């Protein structure tokens, strides 16, 4: 069973998935960020592969990607960093990136190398369903990697079923049709979209992302789905210039909110492991 599936078997609620861009703020901060996040009790970690042309991302993630590329981050370096940090944590690691880089690395080789390094799943926003069915599904299964597809408020029900069927691990609910880093407050339309998805009895757990920047957004996402994905707000926090060892636990605490984190399981485990 994959680390992602076993996470959701153990814990169905209040899942917190934090996104950061590999190579930002510095080339070698990847390992430190992953360790700090897992010690702070984050349930899932999404590692962004920095790309020159990130179509689905807003200004914050674009800027972090540019910084990461200027710092010299490449896909082989990233996989090596993940291989090094993997023994220190059991938190599932998901790589998020654009298909062009996967193609250049060679899809089959990339999936195998990522799995070997300790990656558990992928998010490839510009991978079309038709291409997935044609070649990628089999390659991913062979490598033992999960893949999460995105759905949006505009996705028709029939296509939601297809994307759910193609996904393994979890389904990524884009909160509004928007690039990352947008507005935080959820309106009535979004709430009805979340409810509609909740009532569809989908096979995968649902995580809501895009525009979640604070505890209120996180709590709403946890209410209507299995949890939340936070990206741009975390990158802005990292940009504040404070030491990672301080800013990361404080940020996670801020998102989780006043209640003590219910998911102490991970932090205990990773603390005892390290």
């Amino acid at each position: 069973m994959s680390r992602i599936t076993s996470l959701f078997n153990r814990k169905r609620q209040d899942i917190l998935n934090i996104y950061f861009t590999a190579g930002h703020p510095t080339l070698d901060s990847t390992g430190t960020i992953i360790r700090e996040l897992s010690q702070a009790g984050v349930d899932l970690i999404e590692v962004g592969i920095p790309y020159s042309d990130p179509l689905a991302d807003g200004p914050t993630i674009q800027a972090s990607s540019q910084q990461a590329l200027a710092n010299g981050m490449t896909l082989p370096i990233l996989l090596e960093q993940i291989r090094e940090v993997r023994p220190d944590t059991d938190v599932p690691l998901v790589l998020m990136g654009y298909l062009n880089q996967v193609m250049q690395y060679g899809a089959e080789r990339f999936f195998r190398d990522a799995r070997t390094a300790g990656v558990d799943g992928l998010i490839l926003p510009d991978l079309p369903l038709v291409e997935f069915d044609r070649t990628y599904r089999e390659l991913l299964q062979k490598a033992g990697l999960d893949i999460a597809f995105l759905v949006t408020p505009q996705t028709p029900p029939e296509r939601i079923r297809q994307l759910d069927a193609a996904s393994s691990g979890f389904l990524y609910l884009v909160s509004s049709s928007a690039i990352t880093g947008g507005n935080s407050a959820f309106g009535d339309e979004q709430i009805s979209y979340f409810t509609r998805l909740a009532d569809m009895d989908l096979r995968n757990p649902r995580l809501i992302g895009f525009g979640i920047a604070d505890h209120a957004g996180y709590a709403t996402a946890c209410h209507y789905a299995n949890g939340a994905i936070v990206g741009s707000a975390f990158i802005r926090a990292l940009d504040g210039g404070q030491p990672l060892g301080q800013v990361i636990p404080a940020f996670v605490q801020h998102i989780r909110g006043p209640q003590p984190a219910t998911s102490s399981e991970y932090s205990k485990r990773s603390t005892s492991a390290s």
Partner: protein
Amino acid sequence: MHDLTTSSYHVDTEGYYGPFGGAFIPEMLYGNVEQLRLTYRAIMDEPEFQQDFHRLLRDYVGRPTPLYFAPRLSECYNTRIYLKREDLNHTGAHKINNAIGQILLAMRMGKTRIIAETGAGQHGVATATVCALVGLPCVVYMGELDIARQAPNVARMRMLGAEVRPVTSGSRTLKDATNEAIRDWINHPEDTHYIIGSAVGPHPYPDMVTRFQSVISEEIRTQLLDQTGRSNPDAVMACVGGGSNAAGAFYHFLDQPDVRLIAVEAAGLGIHSGHSAATSVLGTEGIIHGSRTLLMQTDDGQIVEPYSLSAGLDYPGIGPLHAHLIRSGRAEALSVTDQEALEGALELTRLEGIIPALESAHALAAIGRAAFQPDDVVVLCLSGRGDKDMATYIEHLDQSSETSTP
């Protein structure tokens, strides 16, 4: 227009030209692109649409554009050269053909807001023009660097009522303006149509833009028949950045194997100088702006910023149709440096009294290298006029007169 969809050089039902094309887009764009994919052919085939389109091309754009036999240029190269005068279109280039088509399509799809990307500003001007024509709001994304380089076109767009939004992300040129327009479309999934200016982007854009531009080769056939008694030339030449004027000039000859198709790319300071836009030579297969095609990139798959003195040709990719035509051997690719293009522009100006756009000058500069026979009939698509390039031309003229005076 006869149906040529059975040909291997035309887009297939899944949006591919051989291995190139497709729609590699995030789910947030799926609804818009799918709506377009499902409706574009049906709308374009409506007799009423065709009527409106051709009426505007005739009465507003000024079509058909002349096919002009260029006697002194022909003599110079010892072959028979005909220029397809897209430079005489309203707004000064072929870009308006596609802008007219897409604005009519957008209105039939019920869209109320238009966005576009632009590099040199010709497509931005064409889009701002058609938006003024029908009274729709228009936002044009343009790289900050290009805004500084193309001030006259920025002024034209503003006068036409468009909002020109400077793009500060990435390399701040055409590639990033396209990214930003796509992000805008993601953020406005209901009311907005994105008028892409070249034969690039996710399916159905390359096919749609090609079909709107195919009026160029449709006219060439008729005009050539009138003037020479034959509708097929021996060769058609056009410059290629993304490739919309070439796609339009080639379209009706794709299935005529006796017609040579010659695509001319910008070599910038030289193909291997590190400052070039010759994508068919330097590019490898990958994905750019939602299309699988040839593009300039690093080993790690990061898209590389191309270079050409001409702002209309410095695109790091090439339309999927052209990638297929070149890779399959149907089209020949030549490349021309900045310097050669400048000389080509001056040559046409002095021989025929026509100042071409710097983009079109690349095609002109390649004539001498295409090994034409004296009785060959060559059609060259003169895609735009040179008004926007006057500052560049004058600088070149001053430099060459300095070096030639003792």
